[in-house]
Structures are given as C-alpha cells and as structure tokens.
C-alpha cells in the first residue's frame, strides 16, 4: 500500500481568486477516494492541476514517486493518470470504437493494446463499459448516460493506474447512476485506484470508504463518509451557518 499520489501545498490563483489554497493530501495504491465540496469549491481545478491541464502557482504533485508538477497533460496520461471531464468530451464525428481506439493508440495504451490488436482492445473496453452494441455509431446521437460511460472507456484505453472521475454522476437519472456505480466498482476491484469528485454527498457516501472534504479551495477534513458528513465545517459549507440543528 505505497503512496500513489502525493499532493503537497498546492495553490492555484486566478486573478483575484484563489481557487485552490495550500491543499495537501495523499492517495494510496488501490484506494477508492472521494473529493467532496459544494459547487465552486475547487474540485475540478484540483483535477485540472493533477492532470496537467493547468499549472499550479506553487506546490508539488508526485505520482508514483515522480514529480509531475506542471508536466504536459499527455505526458501525465502516459505515466498512468487518466481522467474524465465534468462536461462530457467526445470525438463527435468518429465512431465509438474509434473514440476508444485513440486512447489505445497513445504510447501507454499501445503497449497493452498491441498484443491483441488496437481494434480488439478497443472492442473489449467498449464491452466492459457496456456500449459494444453501439460500436459503429458516432457519439452525437448517444444519451447522456452512455456518453459518461464512453468517457470512462476513453480513460481506460490508456491503461491507467489512477483514474480521476470528475462528477461522473452529474446529470444522470437514477437508473443511469446505478449502471455507472457498478462500472466504477468493477474497475476498482480490478485494481485501478479511483479518485472521484461529487457535490451530492449521498451518491458518494455509499460508494467510497474515504472522502476528502474541501471548501473555497481549502482542505477541511478527511475520513469515513459518515464522520465527514457530520463534521461541523462541512455542514456549514453545504447548508450555511447555524444549520447544524437542521441536519
């Protein structure tokens, strides 16, 4: 159970706004961790910083013992951190199979995929996320739930050690949420370390054994979901001051 991801004193400032303020945490190999906080807490910014889409003003990010602070995002992906986006991104005019093939063609994905062939590997990932019967259609006509699955599939194509899921449940119906939950659980059982965000506590509570809570860019607390949910500052952040009695 070594440390897989180590974030230390991470700070990101936009002009006049500190989105992430002196944030530190660790994720161990094989763990399943949630990051919670109300809207605008800075969860997505932390993901952007880890995945290299943005550079931090200060602080370090170490992955698997290597310093990855400020590296280019494709390099970070090829070290083994894959992510999904809160707003779904897909290659709109390519078939689902090709969508996944792109990840399988990345240097890291190719190492694994070329044993079986790119198309075969992409098909097996599509089967794993439950979209194999739609392999030949482009994502423009897919419902939102399938797009979320596709995103996870695209991340899996790069053969990640650590999977960052940014709000995997947002905008989904209850049924669709169930499907994604099953999928994420299965991935975690297969040995992928999962780090996910969510602003609705209930979904995460049942899923993750450990959550980190943040508010206005600052670290608040971490621990078992029940403990965190009863934390005074967390309640304040979600419901406003003086709301402890309500909860």
């Amino acid at each position, binding site marked *: 159970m070594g440390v897989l991801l180590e974030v230390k004193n991470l700070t990101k400032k936009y002009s006049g706004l500190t989105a992430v303020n002196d944030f530190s945490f660790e994720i161990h190999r094989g763990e399943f961790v949630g990051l919670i906080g109300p809207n605008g807490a800075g969860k997505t910014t932390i993901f952007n910083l880890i995945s290299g*889409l943005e550079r931090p003003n200060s602080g370090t990010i170490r992955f698997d013992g290597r310093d990855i602070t400020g590296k280019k995002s*494709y390099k970070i*992906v090829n070290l083994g951190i894959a992510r999904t986006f809160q707003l779904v991104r897909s*290659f*709109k005019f*390519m078939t689902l199979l090709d969508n996944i093939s792109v990840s399988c*063609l*990345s240097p890291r*994905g190719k190492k694994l995929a070329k044993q079986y062939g790119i198309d075969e590997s992409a098909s097996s990932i599509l089967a794993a996320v439950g979209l194999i019967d739609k392999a030949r259609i482009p994502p423009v006509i897919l419902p939102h739930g399938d797009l979320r699955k596709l995103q996870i599939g695209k991340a899996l194509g790069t053969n990640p050690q650590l999977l960052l899921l940014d709000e995997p449940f947002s905008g989904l119906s209850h049924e669709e949420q169930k499907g994604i939950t099953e999928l994420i659980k299965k991935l975690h059982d297969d040995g992928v370390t999962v780090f996910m965000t969510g602003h609705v506590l209930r979904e995460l509570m049942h899923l993750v054994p450990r959550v980190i809570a943040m508010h206005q860019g600052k670290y608040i607390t971490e621990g078992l979901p029940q403990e965190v949910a009863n934390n005074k500052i967390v309640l304040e952040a979600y419901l406003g001051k003086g709301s402890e009695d309500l909860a």
Partner: protein
Amino acid sequence: MSQNIKKYSATIKNFPSYLKDWIFTFKGGLSMLCLLFLILFPMLTQNPYFLGIFILAMIYSIFAASWDFLAGFSGQVSFGHAIFFGISAYGVSATLVFNGFTWWAALLFGMLLAVVVGFIVGIICLRLKGPYLALGTMVIAIMLLDLFKIGQLKEYLWGDQGIIGVPPLSRDAVVVYFALLIFMVSTIIILIQITKSNIGTIFKSIRDDETGAEASGINTTKYKIIAFMISSLFAGLAGGLYAMYIRSVGPLIFQPLYSFYVLIMAALGGIATISGSAIGAFTFIILSEVLRDFNRLDPTNAILTAFSNPAFIFSILLIIIIRFVSGGLLKPALERLKELWDVLLGR
C-alpha cells in the same frame, strides 16, 4: 515481425476479391467509372487545349486533396496553402532551369522543400487555433509573396519576374496527361489510406477535440506537425507539376487567390472527403473555362464581365454551399445516384 509479414501477404492475396467487392459498392463503382473516363479521354480528343484543362484540373485535385486532408481530417484550417504550392514550384523550377535536374529529381526536391517548409509553418502555427490559424498561414503566404518580389533579393529569389522557361514534363501532352493521372490517383489513394489508418484516427481525434485527444494521451503537437508535413508534401507535388505545366513561376503564385481556390474546390466536393476534392477541382476548372468566354458575348455588359471571373462566381457558390449543402455541392446529386445504383443492383 513474421506476424506482420503474414498479415501483409494476406492483404495482398485478398486484394483481387477486395477490389471486386469495392467496385460493386456505390463509391467504388462511381470512382471506377470516373477513372475509366479519364483513361479513355485522350482517345476522344488529343487537342492540347482540352487535355490542358484536364491536366490543370488534376493538378488542382492534388492540391485540393492536400488541403482537405489538413482541414477536413486534422482540423487545421489553412488559408495559406499556396505557401507549399509556391515553394515547391520555385524549388522545381530553379533546379530544372539552373541545375539541370531531371524532372523526377526536381519534383522530389520540390516536395522535400515543401515538407521542410510545412514543418516550419507547423511549428510557427502550433499554438494558433481556428480563425487565428487561418490568419497566420495567410499572413505567411503574403509575406512570401512580398519577399519573392523584392528587387534587391533578385539574385537569390529571381525578383518580380520569377523563373521562366521551365522545361515541361514531356513535350507530348498525352504523356503529361497520363503522368498526371497516375500522380492524382496515387495521391488520392495514399491520402485516403492515411485517413483510414491508425494515424488517421489520431488526426481525426485532434480535429474533433484537441483537449480530449491530449487527455487520451496523444501528443497533439507532434501529430499536428506531422499532418502539416503530409499535407505540404502533396501540395508540393501539385506545385511542382504546376510549374512544369505553366512553364514558369513568379511571386504571384503565393497570392491568397490560390489558397482561396483550393478552399473553394474542397468545399465544392465536400470537406473531409478526399476524393471529393477531385470532383471539386474538375468542376471548378471546367466551369471557369466555360465562364471565361462569357464577357466576349457582350464586353460592355458589366454582369457578364463579372461572371466571367471565376473568383467572383465561385465566391457566390461558396456562400451557397456553406449555407445549404455543407456536405458538398454534389452530395444531393450523388445521393440520388446512389439510390439508382442500389436499384440497378437489385438491393
């Protein structure tokens, strides 16, 4: 390694049956008919004027296909494609006239020169996206236009007049015609095969969503430059052939009009369809030849004079295409034809 060899030999062995299947598809059948017509055309007429129109159309087909590859499949919209066209035309002309190269050596040199320039332009324009990329490439083309015009640099860049007396590919128009046909067909086949290959999948992913491609672990910088280099290789081929066909080259080859022409041709045939650019180029060249004589009917008539200018009429066409048939001017007609084809084959 041996696995690969087995795979390739299987591909080659299966080729005849693959070809047979392909011909019976709509696209394959139509392409075969067009090819057959192009092969048989010199038997209809050996008039250098008609052959010339087709030769020019084939040169522009290569040029438009190279643009379509870059814009339609890699998402890098260039408004300065004349850069590669012109550089190669200069390279080919200079080596032919001053260094006495044979035509294929000169052509190879011109293409290499275009690839090098494509690499440089690719690096310069890396961080530019969308309209800014279009502007950036256009500006580079205009810079080259002015650079090649400068009288003080005449010793190195041949000034205003350019290079004249470039030897043709062959004295016989029919030979030139068939050489061009081979170049055009192989360009289209190669470009289509690239777009279907793994690297083509990566290009298309960059076109659809660059950040998404990066998040899939793709080094987008590298592949964008590769796309620029492949495109400039074929634009260079077209430029070299153009110089040999026109028999001279001047700084005006860099003018935005040429970059605009390819854009119109690719849009006519439908963007992101390599073979569509050939259809677009033929339509463009033949129509502009027809329109050219319009103002002779009545030289005082302003409207007829305007219509005899291909840039004018095709600009109007372009607007119509963008508004109503973004898949290409011929797409509705082709769809009708496809239905007919299916009926004929009893499907």
